[in-house]
């Protein structure tokens, strides 16, 4: 077991390292992208550019620059922005994290409830009218561009109906729960539904597929021959076996989201979470910020992937025997 953990850890570190190098190369090594001119401003003279380069160590060889950046990021933890000179990166990320978490937790609750109920209803009523109906909504949910959906939602809540039904919906932004729970809720309710819609569609479809597959298995026939009720067979046997896929999917999805993958939703609703921060970094070509956010995100992806592996062994007894 310790060997297994050590291997996993080594592989995780390797993945994070590779991602960091890749991002670094994309942003630093692509011709035409000159961070110095970014920092110094558009109309900087060559002299200013040279000075900026020197200050920020931009004229050193690539590996040194990479090492420096990693050093400032992880060890000294004082990495500063290229765009807003002097602003430290890490505090920005830590300030943004709870916002992303608030967004995700609400969305998770909604999509799990809606997605799993829809999947179960569709599978139970396979072939009857409600099955294709539910699946159609599922397909529609995954066909809607998230950013556009967010804008449409804003259009409805901030447009004509803003003076009547949706007067209580704020125009984007975030209020911390410690400041005002009610405000926190009103700021997040629509982003929750927007983010949840895509995932609800995905989970409904996956669960329906899994349930229907599992209901055709031999052990379901055995359970029926035992005299168990159809309800018990569906929930205790078929659903329990379908959970294996759903849980691993869920773990990866949440991991990626915590790491900032909800950036489109955050941007459209003006929620300054990690995704929003990443987006700011990307569009401003604020390389340290980008690096910080990407490392943050990669960490969670790797963590989630490992957690899912462990969880998998817990919910599928067949896996436990092997390693």
């Amino acid at each position, binding site marked *: 077991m310790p060997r297994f953990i050590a291997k996993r850890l080594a592989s995780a570190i390797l993945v994070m390292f590779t991602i960091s190098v890749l991002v670094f190369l994309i942003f630093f090594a692509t011709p035409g992208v000159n961070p110095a001119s970014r920092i110094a401003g558009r109309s900087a003279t060559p002299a200013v550019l040279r000075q900026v380069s020197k200050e920020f160590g931009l004229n050193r060889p690539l590996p040194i620059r990479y090492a420096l950046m990693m050093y400032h990021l992880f060890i000294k933890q004082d990495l500063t922005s290229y765009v807003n000179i002097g602003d430290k990166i890490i505090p920005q990320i830590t300030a943004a994290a709870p916002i992303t978490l608030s967004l995700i937790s609400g969305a998770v609750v909604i999509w799990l409830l809606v997605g799993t109920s829809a999947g179960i209803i569709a599978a139970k009523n396979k072939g009857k009218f409600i099955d294709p109906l539910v699946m159609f909504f599922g397909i529609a949910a995954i066909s809607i561009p998230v950013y556009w959906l967010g804008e449409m939602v804003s259009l409805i809540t901030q447009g004509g109906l803003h003076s009547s039904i949706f007067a209580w919906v704020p125009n984007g932004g975030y209020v911390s729960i410690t400041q005002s729970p009610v405000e926190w809720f009103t700021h997040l309710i629509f982003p929750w539904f927007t983010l949840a819609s895509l995932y609800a569609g995905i989970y409904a479809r996956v669960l329906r597929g899994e349930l229907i597959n599992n209901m055709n298995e031999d052990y379901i026939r055995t359970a029926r021959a*035992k005299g*168990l009720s159809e309800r018990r067979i569906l929930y205790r*046997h078929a659903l329990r076996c379908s959970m294996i896929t759903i849980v691993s999917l869920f773990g990866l999805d949440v991991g990626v989201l915590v790491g900032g993958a909800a950036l489109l939703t955050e941007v459209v609703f003006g929620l300054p979470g990690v995704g929003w921060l990443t987006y700011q970094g990307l569009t401003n070509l604020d390389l340290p910020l980008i690096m910080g956010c990407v490392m943050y995100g990669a960490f969670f992806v790797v963590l989630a992937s490992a957690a899912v592996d462990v969880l998998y062994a817990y*919910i599928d007894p067949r896996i436990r025997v092997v390693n």
Partner: protein
Amino acid sequence: MRDLSVSFATRRGVVQAVDGLSFDVQPKEVLGIVGESGSGKSVAMYSMLGLVRDANVRVSGSVLFEGREILGLTDTEMQSVRGGQVGMIFQDPMTALTPVYTVGWQIAEQLRAHNEMTKKQANERATELLAEVGIPDPKSRANHYPHEFSGGMRQRVVIAMALSCNPKLLIADEPTTALDVTTQAQILDLMGRLQATYGSSIVIITHDMGVIAEIAHRVVVMYAGRPAEIGPELDVVRAARHPYTWGLLGAVPRADVKTRRLVTIPGNAVSPLAVPAGCAFAPRCEYRMDICEQRPPLRGANDHLDACWLSDEQRLEIRSTATVRGES
């Protein structure tokens, strides 16, 4: 069972899987149903319990269990019959158990579905049952998962589960087909002993006449969804009447008789989509006559029935010629 018929509506036409099957099972009796793959033997028993979930299936006829009609009952009504009155053992032990629950839990689940028991009582009884079917160290093994057991062991678990509520009838669908010969003998032995202890009737489905000879009291021989011959095991084995049964018996390899070639029944099993209007076996039958274009009725004397147009005199003649030729 009276006149059970099961058909499936498929894209290529109606498949008559079972066509007019009738038989009785007495208490404490072992009835063997034997036939080739596709003869409808499994489908018949599954449809009896409503375990065929295909939307395109049509079941007709009558099945009386202890005087009560069980064909056509709803799932809710069947719940007390399944598992409680009728236990079932399946062909493939590797996939018969739910992989995510321990075997003890699964047995206890059945117990508690049919009896008022606490979890503790059910678990204890489950352990007892595991011991009865010959699982070593049952107390700790009850907490193991199905994949931690070998095929033969898993089949024993399934048997334990099927017998857990003292059912009046046990249906065993090819219980030994997926197992090696040694395990096969052990399982059959186990079933025989348990039957004596619990006093349940058994319907055992198999394609192997050897298994029939081993434990069955009475036999139903099926071909193309129709009964070919029904009778006491000794009668059927020693004095079979239907040419198909002759084929099945001849096909049993024997260690005491020197043969150069294994006997087979010529031709291929009939396609369920193209069952002849007359005798289903006629196309493959050495002794077919013109009258075989009409479907022979199931008839006979002394409890031994057959669906064949051959008269007793004709059979006698066939037998004597065969003896002369050195075949039995």
